[in-house]
């Protein structure tokens, strides 16, 4: 019974840091490439830090200078991105706590903050183990004293027997009550109060304020690459928002669309400094462009910020995307009622079951109305359900191609009208985007 009680609770996997059981995956649109940076788990601190960079199609060959910095130490290396798939690099960590991973190509820079966590026992565990160890020692000592014939020694047997009882009761009680004691905090963890939702209405006791987005696109002309700078500031204090955590394997999901919805890009701007994100973009359609950015602040849910920018110049012909064999089926679309879109992916006429997870799931659907005011991001249903309850350490990364052929998305939209939508999935390290339109009819009163 006691042995059962003493089984250590498994250390919770850290979602937004690296630990002996958790990797950190972040998509980064950087230096002309769509990369996924995977900071691998750290079984030993100090020890090696393995960083994998997964390159997606098309690859623009670059040499990445990668460095990891902690309070007093730095380790750096170089990785050449020249083909599809995984590129590996070995750096080092010397301590638990806050770190920054910096990627650099010429004057372009991406800074990824993360924490290295080292699990350790909780304070009460020392007490429980110490108590049981003391009980064992007193038992042996008491027996030893009792068998010795000298009365001066034998007198120590009874008090030790009493101490055995005290030690067992104290550590046994602590062990039984341990489920109500604070769990062990890993070394290097952020000092955060344990917070529970209000049982009355589910409101979060903390929860961070909303954010504002400022978009800057200098000299944006069709056909020419330009830099889009996004500044995220706190709605209450006005300070840069720098508590963004990994949300669906990215710090920020950015959707850029022109007003008509002919051009679409789902990318992941890199953090260049506190609250500042940047991305390079080339537009083919002039006019007004919409910016929808989704991210999650620490101790809060995800949020969407929007903005727009203008592109001058002449319209250029659209780039023809590589055709993917996808058959889309949409159930009857009625406002306020669930709509299901099923995408069946084929290769050479046969159903494809080698799709890769991208951003933590098999597929994404983005839907927007004509005005850009309504924006939906729908997750693929089957892969999300399969991932639930799975050991976080066993969640496959993007190199495991075992999803598909059917991608299922269910969602509803509030008002009738015409919507532009895109289904996205990954296969062979290429991200496929399938545009389509949905006409939603008036619901029954």
């Amino acid at each position, binding site marked *: 019974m006691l042995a059962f009680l003493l089984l250590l609770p498994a250390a919770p996997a850290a979602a937004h840091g690296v630990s002996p059981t958790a990797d950190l995956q972040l998509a980064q649109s950087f230096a002309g490439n769509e990369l996924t940076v995977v900071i691998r788990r750290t079984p030993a601190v100090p020890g090696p830090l393995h960083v994998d960079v997964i390159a997606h199609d098309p690859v623009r060959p670059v040499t990445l200078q990668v460095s990891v910095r902690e309070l*007093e130490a730095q380790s750096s290396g170089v990785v050449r991105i020249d083909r599809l798939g995984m590129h590996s690099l070995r750096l080092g960590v010397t301590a638990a706590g806050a770190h920054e991973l910096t990627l650099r190509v010429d004057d372009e820079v991406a800074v990824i903050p993360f924490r290295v966590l080292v699990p350790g026992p909780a304070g009460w565990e020392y007490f429980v183990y110490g108590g049981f160890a003391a009980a064992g020692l007193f038992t042996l000592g008491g027996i030893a004293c009792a068998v010795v014939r000298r009365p001066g020694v034998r007198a120590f047997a009874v*008090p030790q027997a009493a101490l055995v009882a005290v030690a067992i009761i104290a550590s046994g009680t602590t062990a039984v009550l341990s489920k109500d004691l604070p769990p062990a905090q890993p070394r290097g963890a952020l000092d955060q109060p344990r917070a529970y939702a209000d049982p009355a209405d589910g409101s979060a006791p903390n929860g961070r304020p909303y954010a504002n987005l400022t978009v800057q696109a200098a000299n944006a002309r069709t056909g020419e690459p330009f830099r889009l700078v996004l500044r995220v500031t706190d709605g209450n204090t006005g*300070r840069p928002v720098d508590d963004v955590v990994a949300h669906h394997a990215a710090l920020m999901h950015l959707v850029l669309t022109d007003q008509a919805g002919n051009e679409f890009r789902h990318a992941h701007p890199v953090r260049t400094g506190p609250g500042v994100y940047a991305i390079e973009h080339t537009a083919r359609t002039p006019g007004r462009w919409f910016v929808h950015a989704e991210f999650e602040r620490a101790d809060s849910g995800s949020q969407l910020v929007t903005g727009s920018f203008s592109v001058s110049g002449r319209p250029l012909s659209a780039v023809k995307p590589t055709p993917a064999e996808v058959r889309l089926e949409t159930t009857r679309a009625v406002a306020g009622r669930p709509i299901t879109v099923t995408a069946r992916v084929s290769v050479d006429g046969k159903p494809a079951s080698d799709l890769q997870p991208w951003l933590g799931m098999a597929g994404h659907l983005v839907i927007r109305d004509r005005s850009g005011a309504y924006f939906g991001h729908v997750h693929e249903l089957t892969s999300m359900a399969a991932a639930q309850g799975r050991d976080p350490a066993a969640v496959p990364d993007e190199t495991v191609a075992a999803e598909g052929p059917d991608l299922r998305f269910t969602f509803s939209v509030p008002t009738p009208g015409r919507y532009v939508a895109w289904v996205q999935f990954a296969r062979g390290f290429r991200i496929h985007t399938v545009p389509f339109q949905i006409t939603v009819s008036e619901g029954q009163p």
Partner: protein
Amino acid sequence: MTKTRRRTLAIALTGVVLAAVVAIAYAVGGGEDRVALKAASDRYQIELYLGEQRTGPIDAELVVRDTGGRPAELSGITLAGVMPSMGHAMSELTATATAPGRYAVRGELFTMTGQWEVVVRLGGSHEITVPVTVTR
């Protein structure tokens, strides 16, 4: 020695040993007075000594070194408290140099208990943020 006296002595001795063990454990576990809150950027390493992490005016000391560990002599260093969960921002306090790389600040950084951040501005727009738990 009578049987009773032996027994009393044995109990007393065991008690003394137990008390000594508890006292040593306490001395090893506790007893930290001045806590340095450390943080670093790609240019500087800082150590912030807040004395007491409490609301109201406090005396704080800041030690700034460059990445090579040499004292950094800067002008116009400011400190400001920010409470992200409540959306509170405090006005900036200006630090005065007391020795090379050492700066003193007096003023209110925190207005309520909870998780705060001290934003240390080291000239221009270079900032380092230090998390602080305010307990009283």
